[in-house]
């Protein structure tokens, strides 16, 4: 019999409903796996007592016929979501002792629907990074290894803890946040399904802000259907976030398995970037074939301003970050370092509290917003953003339903391999994903193949605004054709 923690979320839901096991048994299975997987460093906090308590209450509701849609399902939460009474640090020293007195809207939806919280999952500091190496808790180690090679690999970032924990069976599914690819890139690196919905689909209230016009919550799961189940609970209007939209949330599970016959899938020629490896090119072609075989029509499209997305992203994101992170001043929360006056106190507090990548990004953001440079940088980047959005609007107006691209330009890399000399090297990880955030669109990464050294690779599906259902239908077609990519060697627990 499969260990309970290795069941998919969909299977676990069925098992609980049929009374094959209890929520407490399921939760204990995860807590045991978490204890044996501390070498992966995916959790920043394990909330075992809270989890057992929530599971016991879930069992009581199942017994009395009051089960919610996620009743008894054990989940992990990225440490960017405020969780009441549980340390929420953004993996930064400046928030190391921060214990929120409130719950983020997205996580409150999960608990409302009966889910069990196993703990908080690591990320790059303030979600700034593509490898989870900038966390104040140290890097998260991927459960994946190259064939015949024990080099520790990154799980991607910024939601690296979420991706590693879902892939390593340390939670049934997890929340993530995605500002430039922070769900999709780690999903691709770990053989998991990751979806970032349309900007406005999930409330940002209670999520630690990085770049407010780009940030969006989303899901990591082991199957497309699992992601659909969680997405439905997380989404929905919230008066506390003025950018959250008041639209009906569909039952995304209905879209899983729906026919994609006649759907028009665009292949953007500008995503064939210089130096893209042969195996990524082949994966992309195989993905197009899978969708064609299921009755979709594949068309070549052009998104002419793609090459400007990454520079525009880094201006917009860093400018907004410098503004958002101004609040960490040692006054209202976080660690304070005393100084000779209040300015000195701010400067010492922030120098001690922020790691090098965060400090670098705040400084760039401060520079591009400083007097005399606003028009040349931020305003210009927002105009480029209009052009990037228009590229997508044009292809959708021509009848394209979704766009297929690779998720990342390469498979997972080793811890310490990238970005130590030049920060831009790491930024290039996001080349296929940032366009989506700039245009506010929904996108999903689905595992679709292996690299030559045995690591999972992902394909990205980009949808029309608020048409996440199309992504779930197309994602299931790829999952059916390519199969799933479960981690088979649990080397860390031996």
């Amino acid at each position: 019999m499969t260990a309970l923690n290795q069941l998919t979320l969909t299977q676990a839901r069925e098992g609980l409903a049929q009374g094959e096991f209890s929520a407490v048994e399921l939760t204990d299975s995860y807590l045991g796996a978490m204890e044996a997987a501390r070498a992966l460093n995916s959790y920043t906090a394990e909330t075992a007592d809270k989890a057992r308590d929530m599971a016991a209450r879930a069992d009581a509701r199942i017994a009395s016929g009051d089960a919610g849609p996620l009743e008894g399902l054990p989940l992990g939460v990225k440490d960017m979501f405020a969780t009441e009474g549980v340390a929420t640090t953004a993996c930064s020293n400046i928030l190391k002792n921060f214990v929120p007195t409130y719950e983020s809207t997205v996580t409150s939806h999960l608990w409302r629907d009966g889910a069990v919280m196993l703990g908080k999952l690591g990320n790059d500091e303030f979600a700034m990074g593509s490898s989870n190496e900038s966390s104040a808790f140290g890097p998260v180690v991927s459960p994946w290894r190259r064939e015949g090679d024990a080099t520790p690999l990154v799980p991607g970032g910024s939601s690296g803890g979420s991706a590693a924990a879902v892939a390593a069976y340390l939670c049934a599914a997890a929340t993530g946040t995605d500002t430039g690819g922070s769900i999709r890139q780690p999903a691709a690196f770990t053989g998991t399904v990751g979806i970032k919905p349309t900007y406005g689909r999930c409330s940002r209230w209670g999520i630690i802000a990085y770049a407010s016009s780009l940030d969006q919550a989303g899901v990591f799961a082991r199957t497309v259907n699992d992601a659909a189940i969680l997405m439905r609970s997380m989404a929905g209007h919230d008066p506390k976030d003025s950018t959250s939209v008041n639209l009906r949330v569909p039952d995304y599970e209905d879209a899983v398995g729906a026919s994609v016959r006649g759907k028009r899938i665009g292949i953007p020629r500008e995503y064939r970037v210089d130096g893209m490896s042969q195996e990524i090119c082949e994966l992309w072609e195989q993905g197009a074939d899978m969708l064609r075989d299921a009755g979709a029509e594949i068309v070549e499209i052009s998104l002419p301003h793609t090459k400007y997305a990454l520079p525009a992203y880094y201006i917009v994101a860093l400018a907004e970050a410098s503004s958002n992170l101004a609040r960490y001043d040692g006054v209202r929360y976080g660690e304070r370092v005393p100084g000779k006056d209040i300015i000195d106190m701010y400067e010492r507090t922030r120098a001690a509290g922020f790691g090098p990548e965060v400090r670098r990004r705040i400084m760039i953001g401060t520079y591009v917003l400083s007097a005399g440079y606003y028009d040349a940088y931020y305003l210009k980047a927002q105009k480029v953003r209009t052009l990037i959005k228009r590229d997508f609007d044009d292809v959708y107006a021509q009848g394209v339903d979704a766009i297929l691209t690779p998720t990342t330009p390469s498979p997972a890399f080793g811890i310490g391999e990238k970005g130590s000399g030049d920060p831009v090297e790491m930024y290039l990880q996001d080349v296929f994903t940032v366009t989506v955030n700039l245009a506010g669109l929904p996108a999903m990464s689905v595992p679709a193949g292996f690299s030559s050294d045995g690591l999972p690779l992902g394909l990205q599906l980009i949808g029309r605004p608020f048409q996440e259902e199309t992504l779930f239908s197309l994602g299931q077609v790829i999952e059916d054709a390519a199969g799933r990519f479960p981690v088979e060697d649990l080397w860390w627990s031996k």
Partner: protein
Amino acid sequence: MSVDIGTVRRVAHLARISVSEEELPALQGELNAILAFVEQLSELDVSDVEPMTSAVPMTLPLRADEVTDGHYPDRILANAPEAEGGFFTVPKVVE
């Protein structure tokens, strides 16, 4: 566009991050690498383009101007490094 050491020092102060003199050259190199990267945007003529102000077209909602939340100072101050008498406290600002 590239920045000199003096600009890095000024930006660090504007960002309220204390930076030692020894750290400045390395930061200057990193900042210039990022600024050189975003310089690609200068190829584009955007004089006739409106800047994006909202990722998804929407009108910001309005609500009645009334108190809907609050009255729990203890919770607000729970994470403050220093608090006294229901207030955040900071080093003396006015002489």
